[in-house]
């Protein structure tokens, strides 16, 4: 209990101070609400719009999760395939890098054309944005094994499969989770961006849709409420990854859990 407080206490305190300053600044400087609503106003709007925010949260959560899962499966399988052969890696990895630099948002209209509007397109945006960190980090983990260990196992007659199972795969775990931590945030961002440009409206609308929706209607407080919920989702994803990695890797790699970006 005490540990939990030590963990979340300081950022919580910072949050309270910042909210206070924010509220004070809005009052004292007389900043109009449509430029910068006070935190109270944002909170009030969040309550009023809670139905839309909740369903937006749910929809974005689902799309982000599916996008991240797809990126995880494809990223890990891709990394395994690339790790099996230098030739494959040399031929394909540059394309993975290129894929990362493609402005995915600009591709979104094409996704609509190819796979239809809404969910699938949004997931595709999230998937592509989230893919690379997982692929690159996992690949790095699979190939950056200690050559001496590989020699050692070979000497005892171990085949590729055994070396993969006993050395490469476990060695890649911390790298994989580093990738996951980056990708978890990116999946949420990708989903929201996707929803902004090709997302579903109505019941299936995600948070990204409501960002545009509220901005179109000049409702700055609603925009803020949406951004806060989105940020909350991003943090939840990140923390889920931290939790998952310490669950899976347990005690052995605690030092590796420090985020590196």
């Amino acid at each position, binding site marked *: 209990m005490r540990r939990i407080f030590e963990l979340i206490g300081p950022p919580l305190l910072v949050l309270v101070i*910042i909210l206070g300053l*924010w509220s004070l600044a809005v009052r004292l400087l007389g*900043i*109009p609400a449509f*430029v910068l609503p006070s935190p109270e106003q944002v909170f009030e709007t969040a309550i009023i719009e809670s139905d839309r925010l909740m369903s937006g949260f749910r929809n974005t959560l689902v799309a982000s999760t599916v996008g991240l899962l797809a990126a995880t499966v494809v990223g890990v399988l891709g990394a395994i395939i690339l790790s099996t052969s230098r030739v494959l890696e040399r031929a394909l990895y540059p394309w993975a890098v290129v894929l990362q630099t493609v402005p995915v948002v600009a591709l979104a209209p094409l996704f609509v054309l190819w796979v239809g*509007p809404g969910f699938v397109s949004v997931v595709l945006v999230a998937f592509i944005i989230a893919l690379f960190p997982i692929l690159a980090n996992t690949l790095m983990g699979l190939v950056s094994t200690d050559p001496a260990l590989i020699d050692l196992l070979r000497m005892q007659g171990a085949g590729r499969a055994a070396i993969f199972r006993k050395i490469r795969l476990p060695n890649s775990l911390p790298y994989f989770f580093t990738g996951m931590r980056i990708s978890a945030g990116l999946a949420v961002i990708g989903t929201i961006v996707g929803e902004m440009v090709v*997302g579903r409206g109505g019941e299936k609308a995600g948070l990204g849709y409501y960002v545009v929706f509220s901005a179109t209607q000049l409702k700055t407080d609603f925009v803020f409420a949406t951004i806060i919920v989105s940020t909350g989702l991003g943090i939840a994803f990140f923390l889920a990854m931290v939790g998952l990695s310490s669950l899976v890797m347990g005690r052995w790699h605690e030092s590796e859990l420090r985020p590196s970006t």
Partner: protein
Amino acid sequence: MTRPASLMWLQLPLLATLIVIAACAEKPKDDIISVQTDWFASTDHAALYAAELHGYFDVRNLHVEIRQGGPGIRAPNDVATGRATFGLALPENIILAAAEDVELLSVFASYQESPIGLMVHESSGVLNIEDIANLTVQIFPGQVFWEVLKYETGIAPAEIAFDGSMTAWAENSDWAVQGFATTNPFDARKVGAEPRMLTATQLGFRAYAGVIFTSQSYAQENQETIQAFVAALQQGYADFLANPQPVIEYINSEVNNDFLVEVGEAAAVIMQDLAVSQETESLGLGAMNAEVWNDVATRMFEAGIVRNEVGASTLWTNEYLTSRDEQDVQ
């Protein structure tokens, strides 16, 4: 482990700071009248560009700077924060701003009937709002006319956010896409589609469009400037409607090369109908009336788009207009 999380919390205040900084920066110079439009230059802003081209601002000693809009540009915000003197937007936005305690004053309406609406495929046979219920509608999230119509008719078609591209719509005959009657049907024909344009008015929501507005505070202290500015707009717009070609070519060659002359020519034909009404006949181009304004405001409130009922009467005025008779006298 906690560090990135706590850093994320910093994003919001940071964003807020940026907004405040942005709001404080960029005040216009006193003698320059800046006008922020809602989109890239086109004939939808013809009154402004015609006045500029024909020197109607100059002869009135007005130093006008027209700024093109684009995605993410919201002219009411710019006028409210003082970054622009005038803005051009849909009247719905003036009402939305009023609901947020931003007091704007509309002084000129480019369109008596909004050209905004939905574009469907001719082959779909769709004629009215009820038919649209079965389509997939591609539209900017939060578009007021659409939210009102949905609320009033109870239809709930599949919707997706409009990305600005007509490509997907062109491929899907059971889709409707948001568009402007002035320009989008022409674009659609060019990519081989057979569009049918249903304007908001035809679908059951009549509103003005291309409304030019300023802030109430500016209006109180600059009556004469506004008078002169609106007169220049009326004069320019009348010239444009009578002879659109020079203005179209001016926009194309001097302001926005992407706006094709042929698109402008097609738009000008349609504008002949949309720009005039009984009001404009008697009161002059740009005129508005209370009935239309009040109707829009009431329906927006009823549909829950604004939370407080907004009295529309203070949001617009015809007082700066000059009727054709008066012009003749002058």
